[in-house]
């Protein structure tokens, strides 16, 4: 099996052979919901960090008993999976205040008796400054302490440093992957790229790095894709559904880059190792290309989208966000102005977590492709 097939296959189900093997060895797995969680800390404790998603979630009836229809369908779908027991293989959860929806998951799960013994909440600052980095460093320190106490492990400097190095290697490899996607004939579709990214959220990082190395080797020999109508960039809120990309690419668009937390924003910048590793983590996580929850980074976020689009020679940007995601909804006002100035066409889409409304999506994308297509 090729590395590409293997990576794409890893995302078909919630668990995969690596997860099963990890559990068989009586090791712990902790789920989290946000790219601001420093996974290195879990990895250093020999705990597998796992990004919680709810692929192919068919209904949210159980979650809707507690959460309202004003809460985004990603959060409700994840809660549904928790209620259905699909996440019973997890030994804990980490939450953040990244948005109003996800932060309330922490409350609802605790109060409705589906919490785990390990339930940690990381307070992520909403701005980037010397003081906020120091605050986040202390939050990460408490996170470390809680992992150590809960799982009876000690996270040594050496282990943490090694974990950061392993994760930095991922970042480096993924950047190389994204460089290949910038080529005139990229070797991957956007759908495949997203699957590759998603695989990394659900398997041990050392195994993932090995797969990525094999993949890069394979891709160096692969003939690129050139029969596309237009090169697209995806931006906006978290999107973890390769089928969503697939629906656009079936129409002739080729997604060549992104600004997403399941994409470039997750890995774009390495963690610079300093004397204080906790500070290194805090600095890196807060300073990387930001989510729309960072109040003082509006212009930088739009600039990052513009730069990524230009670097990848994207013909247009598809900005997507979940319905009820206020944070990315607000950013749109700034982004549309910035991209207009840069003469980069923009298509703004609202979506639900489940890919139901494919017809509407196809109509919008088709019209966009006709407008921008080569």
């Amino acid at each position, binding site marked *: 099996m090729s590395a590409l097939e293997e990576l794409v296959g890893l995302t078909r189900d919630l668990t995969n052979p690596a997860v099963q093997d990890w559990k068989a060895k009586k090791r712990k797995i902790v789920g989290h919901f946000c790219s601001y969680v420093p996974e290195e800390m879990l990895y250093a404790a020999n705990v597998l960090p796992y990004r919680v998603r709810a692929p192919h979630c068919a209904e949210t009836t159980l979650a809707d008993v507690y959460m309202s229809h004003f809460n985004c369908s990603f959060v409700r779908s994840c809660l549904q999976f928790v209620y259905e027991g699909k996440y019973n293989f997890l030994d804990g959860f980490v939450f953040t205040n990244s948005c109003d929806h996800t932060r309330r998951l922490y409350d609802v799960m605790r109060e409705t008796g589906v919490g785990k013994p390990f339930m940690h909440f990381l307070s*992520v600052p909403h701005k980037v400054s010397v003081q906020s980095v120091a605050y986040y460093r202390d939050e990460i320190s408490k996170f470390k302490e809680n992992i150590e106490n809960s799982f009876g492990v000690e996270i040594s400097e050496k282990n943490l440093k090694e974990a950061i190095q392993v994760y930095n290697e991922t970042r480096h490899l993924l950047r190389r992957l994204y460089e290949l996607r910038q080529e005139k004939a990229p070797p991957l579709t956007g759908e495949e790229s997203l699957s590759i990214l998603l695989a990394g959220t659900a398997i041990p990082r050392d195994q993932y790095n090995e797969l990525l190395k094999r993949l890069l080797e394979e891709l160096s020999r692969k003939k690129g894709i050139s029969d596309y109508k237009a090169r697209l960039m995806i931006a906006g809120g978290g999107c973890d559904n390769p089928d969503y990309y697939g629906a656009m690419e079936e129409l002739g668009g080729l997604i060549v880059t992104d600004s997403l937390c399941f994409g470039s924003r997750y890995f774009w910048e390495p963690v610079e190792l300093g004397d204080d590793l906790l500070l290194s983590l805090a600095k890196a996580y807060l300073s990387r290309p930001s989510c*729309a929850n960072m109040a003082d980074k509006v212009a930088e976020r739009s600039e990052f989208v513009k730069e990524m689009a230009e670097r990848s020679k994207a013909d247009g940007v598809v900005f997507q966000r979940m319905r009820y995601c206020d944070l990315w*909804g607000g950013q749109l006002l700034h982004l549309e102005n910035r991209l207009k100035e840069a003469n980069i066409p923009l298509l703004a889409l609202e979506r639900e977590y489940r890919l139901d409304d494919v017809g509407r999506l196809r109509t919008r994308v088709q019209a966009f492709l006709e407008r921008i297509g080569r």
Partner: protein
Amino acid sequence: MEKKGDILTAVAGASSLIRDTMASKFGNKHPEWAWTNALLADYFETARQAKESGRPLAWVNFCTIGEIFWAMDIVPLVIDVMTGVVAMALPGGAIKYIDLAEQHIPDHICSNNKTCVGAALAGDLPMPDMIVHQSAPCDSNLATFPVIAECFGSSYFCIDVPYWRNEAGFEYVAGEIKRLISWLEDKTGRKLDMDRLKQVMAYSNLAHEYILKINQLREAIPCPYSSIETISEYAVVLALAGKPELVDYLRRRYELTKGRVERGEGHLSRDQEKIRLAWIYGAPAFDFTIFSWLERQYGAVSVANMNNNFIIRPVEDISDLNKIARGLATKLVEMPMGRECGGPWENYVDAMIDLCRRSKADAAIFAGHVACKHNWAIAKLVKDRIYDELRIPTLIFEMDVYDPRIASSENIKAKFDEFFGAFFE
């Protein structure tokens, strides 16, 4: 055709009109009904004249402390107070601004923020010199204020408030307040005068002493406040924090209320007051007459409201900047709605159980502003916990504080009819 940039004139005019109407219609029996609008009329006029009088104008949100601004002679326009008056008193309310904003940002963003964005886009609201808000309690604030600042060229400062309300968090916020002061000094070229700040803090402390005493009086049966006063007082406490005018208002209010309670008088008589309601979330700013309708129709007095639930203690030590910043950090974190809606849900449910208990409420009302995703996520949990603890029912319904198209006045009244029919007949 309306003149551009005249929204502040309009809200000042509307507040003056309400003040004058109240004074002429009810002045003999209830002079206090004109007081809050008198203060608001002057406040909006001050904001309108800020630039021409050489004072910087700042937009701030409802969880921002006004004291620092007044001490530096910067006029803090609490956006939420302004949009509330737009929705309540201007012809057509906030709808035209909401519609305009929705051409650029999603409809599910808070209509308060949409009103602000729409008014800015329409050119009806002069852009301020600066925009300052705290990061809690909601995404809508985070989603709009920095974007407005970037798009329209205002300076911007976010007072970052952590999720956890612990000592480290309060220290961090105190640091944020000191950084805000330095930032304001830098932006305005005005140096903070410590003597002036201490004077402002003294007024602020006096105001909060009165508020705590009034809170106790408002627990009386029958309730000495009218339902509309219970909610509308919130606006002046927000707008005039640290101002002597607020102290003067609260002193008069306290004396009046104390006398009433001592005489056993209420807004409704003991016989008329049949149901005591605690509004634990939201209120229809577009139609406050619903409160009067509840009183007339059901003898249901709205004795408490989350937004006007100031239980903030005066800052004990105002001898130096560090101590003031630390005290204001506590105040900032404990501002109504910021306190309840930021952080874990216990912050909210515990405060609302306390509010219902103190106000001897027979029912809780969750008037769920549709944009408040954070509280809609826990509405059922809150309802259940309130019932478990206090054995009182909670009415939950969807509405929009500023936009009657989500739930009209008639629609809301029908919800109450059904609720009272089920629980109180």
